[in-house]
Each structure stands twice: as C-alpha cells, then as structure tokens.
C-alpha cells in the first residue's frame, strides 16, 4: 500500500484557470448572489431596504456620540466617519464571510464540479450589493459636503476595483485556511472586531497625537484612505495607494499559491 499524502500536488495553472473559469460563469455568480439576498430578506416587508435603514441609523448614532470627542468641524467629521464606516463594514463583511465560503457550500462542492472561485465571487457580489445600498445615505452626505471633483470620481472607480480584487484573494485564501482549521474563522472574526477600533473610523489620527500615528501601520487605514481622502480633501494619497498595490500583489500571489497547493483537498476538509 502506497500512501502519497505527504506530497502535495502543485498546480498553478489549474489555480489560475479556476479564477478565470469562475469569471466566465458570471451569470451563475450574479444569480446566486441575488438568490442569497432574497433568502436573507425573505418575508420581510421592507426587504433589502433594511440595509439603508440600519446603516443610516447606525451612522446617526455614531455621529451624535463621537462628534463630541473630536476637534474637527461637525460636517467634515460626519462625512469622514460615514465614509470610513461604509468601507470598513464592506471589508469586514468580506473577510468574515470569506472564511465560510467553502464550508457553507458543502452540498454544492460535493455534488457539482465547479470552479472554486465561484463561491468567492458569489459572496463578494452579495456583499457588494449590500455596500451599494449602504452608499445611499453616504452619497447624500457627500453631496451636501460639496467637494466632489472629477478626480475623486476617477480615483473612486480605481479604488473600488482594487477593493474587489483584494476581496477575491482574501476570501479564497481565508476560505481555504478556515476550511482546514476551524479555529481560524473565530480568530478572524475576533481580530476584525478589534481592528474596528484600531482603524481610524471613529477617530481622527491627528486628535490622538502620537498614539494616532500608529494608524499608518494598519493596512485597513490605507484601504479606507484611497477612497476617503480624495472625497474629503481632493488629494490623492499616494503612500496609501503604494501600500494597497503591494498588498494586492502579495495577496494575489499568496492566494494563488494556496489554491495551487490545496485546491483538490478542499473537498476533503469540508
């Protein structure tokens, strides 16, 4: 009896193919994401409108309390908090749901041979739809703030694209790790709750002096900055863009590497 389990196959081409074959089935991904949301808001009268309602009321409560703790002008701080909260919520939902993409799809993975990236795209599209709905109150605030220039729209498009690319690698990577090691998903959700307070969403770094400077070592700060800074100040934060580009590249590589190694083993781990 030969047991060849010590050696893992390394199949980078299969992994890369998986990403593209998943994209080719975009109709299925959209349909699936839509279905997930319909199930979530099933028999609710307001339906997906709850996203706007819940997000707006959170925002109002947060602005009411935290505006007392900052020296920034109220309107500036409100937009600052709204944008930060919007983006962090999106990132958090991707990372936390990303841990579950394969575990939740057990029945499908065991019965149909599909590209594994489909489960990531499905989850990203679902959370991106929620993100778009939450944009509504934030968009109104930005119009009121009245500092929207062409440049901020252009950089917004690029920033959203990079957010989605990062969402893809992070969910595939965490999906694989958390399927194998079930502690990882609890670790990740605890980590994300802590990061919410360590990321400049509720506070402005300049208010905190030296402690506030630590924020630049937090990757989430930069993912928020590439969207928030152009809208608030009209400036493109080049340092943050640099950090985001590096994280995107490294992340894509790490995620492709783990998919190349473990793609065929995911089904054994669920």
């Amino acid at each position: 009896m030969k047991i060849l389990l010590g050696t893992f196959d390394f199949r980078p081409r299969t992994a890369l193919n998986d990403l593209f074959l998943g994209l080719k089935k975009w109709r299925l991904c959209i349909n699936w994401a839509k279905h997930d949301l319909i199930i979530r808001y099933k028999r609710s009268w307001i339906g997906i409108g709850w996203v706007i309602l819940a997000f707006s009321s959170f925002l109002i409560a947060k602005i009411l309390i935290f505006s007392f703790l900052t020296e920034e002008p109220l309107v500036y701080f409100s937009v600052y908090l709204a944008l930060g909260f919007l983006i962090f919520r999106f990132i958090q939902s991707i990372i936390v749901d990303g841990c579950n993409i394969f575990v939740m799809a057990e029945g499908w993975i065991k019965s149909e041979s599909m590209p594994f990236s489909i489960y990531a795209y499905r989850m990203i599209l679902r959370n991106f739809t929620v993100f778009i709905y939450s944009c509504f109150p934030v968009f109104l605030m930005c119009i009121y703030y009245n500092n929207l220039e062409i440049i901020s729209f252009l950089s917004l498009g690029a920033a959203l694209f990079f957010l989605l690319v990062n969402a893809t690698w992070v969910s595939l990577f965490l999906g694989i790790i958390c399927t194998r090691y079930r502690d990882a998903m609890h670790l990740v959700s605890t980590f994300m709750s802590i990061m919410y307070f360590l990321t400049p969403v509720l506070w402005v770094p300049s208010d905190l002096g030296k402690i506030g400077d630590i924020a630049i070592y937090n990757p989430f700060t930069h993912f928020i900055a590439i969207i928030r800074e152009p809208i608030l100040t009209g400036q493109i934060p080049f340092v943050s863009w640099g950090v985001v580009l590096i994280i995107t590249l490294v992340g894509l590589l790490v995620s492709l590497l783990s998919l190349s190694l473990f793609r065929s083993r995911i089904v054994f781990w669920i």
Partner: protein
Amino acid sequence: MPSIVAKNVSLIFPILGSDKKLANKIPDASNYKRNRVGGNINIMENGKQFVTAIDDVSFNFNDGDRVGLYGHNGAGKSTLLRILSGVYNPTSGELNVQGKITSMFNLNLGINREASGLENIYFKGLIYGFKKEKIDLVLQGIIEFSELDDYIYLPVKTYSSGMIMRLMFAIATSFEPDIMLLDEWITAGDLAFRKKVDDRMSQMVETTKIVVVASHEKDRLRDWANKFITMKSGCIVNIEKL
C-alpha cells in the same frame, strides 16, 4: 469524442476530527480488507488517519457504453462516480475525461431548497454553462417529464423526496450531456414513474454517449447495462461485457 480513461486511479481520504486514539481501538487496522464495508482504514504512526476509498482502478469508457457499477454499501461506487465528475481529484493515477457531464448524486445535495423548481432548473442550467435562451428550450420538457405541474412554482422544500427525485432526474437527463452519471436513480419514485425512468434511460443512449449508473439492484442494472463492473472495498473486482 467523449471518453473516460482511468489508469491506476486511487483516492485516499484524510479523516479529520475523528478519535485521536483510534489506533488503540483498531490496532489491526493495517490488515487489508478486514472490513466488510468501506475501503481500507490506514492509521499512520503520527496518528493521522486515512481511508482508501478507491484502490488502484483502471478502465476505459467509450461512445455507446452503458456502464453499471455494482457493489455493496461502501464498495466505492458513489466515490468513483464523484471522481469521474471531477468533485474529487484522484490522489494518484491518471484520469482523462472528455465531454460535457451532468450528474445526479444525492437528493439533498446540489439543489436550492428555498428556490422554486423552476428557479432550480435555470440554476442547474447555468451551472452546466448554458445561457437563458437554451434553458428556455428544455424547460417545458423538464416540467412535462417530472409531472410537477403547478408545483414547479413552489419552493423545493415543499416537495416530497419522490418529487425532488423526479425534478433532478429530469434536469440531469434534459441538458443533452455527453456523459451522464447517476447514483441510485432507481430506488425512489412510484411504479408508473419507474417505467418512465426506464424508458428515458433507454432513450438516453441515443443522445448521451456514456452513461454510468451506480446501484445495488443487480438484476435491473444488468438488464440495462452493456458493461457491468463489480466493486468491493474500493477495488474493481470484475469488468464484464454484456
């Protein structure tokens, strides 16, 4: 041309989350083929546990083959079907599958219970890579064959297991696959529908090049198949041409 070629294919599962002290309970685990069901259980010195679900199988399926996979519970029939469909990759050996596959494995897997029958037809069609227009073409045929009538608009969770079987069988057979894999299709369904299933299975041979069916109903399988494979403990014991 659709074909399936397997050369020394094996599948060894890791067992996760099982009893760490399993080695004490079954010290004789390495004794090959001591179990009456399932494949061989392997326990490594470091405590890691594996099951050899498919053990070094080789075969060729070609155009026109109606393959019957026969064996007791745990003989590896379903696992072998899943390997052919691509759900599992063989841990060793070579497998080459050419052709579009549809499959029907388990009534509880691979269906959206919250969605209606109709939505599930579209969903499966999308999974098989068809566009909406193509799915529209086979839609009426599926509804007609499954005899679900108005129930096609209700969520699948309101269906009985026989109704789910009708729907899934109709879907699996309607998208004109090159290769069709069915696990235990015979067992569910009332007599009248069984007749319909048998007729459909005979028809399938004209459009579908390779059909593989796993079952433990020996006589019925032998009536239908032209290639009969007997499995035991993950191994192929015998391949007969009928």
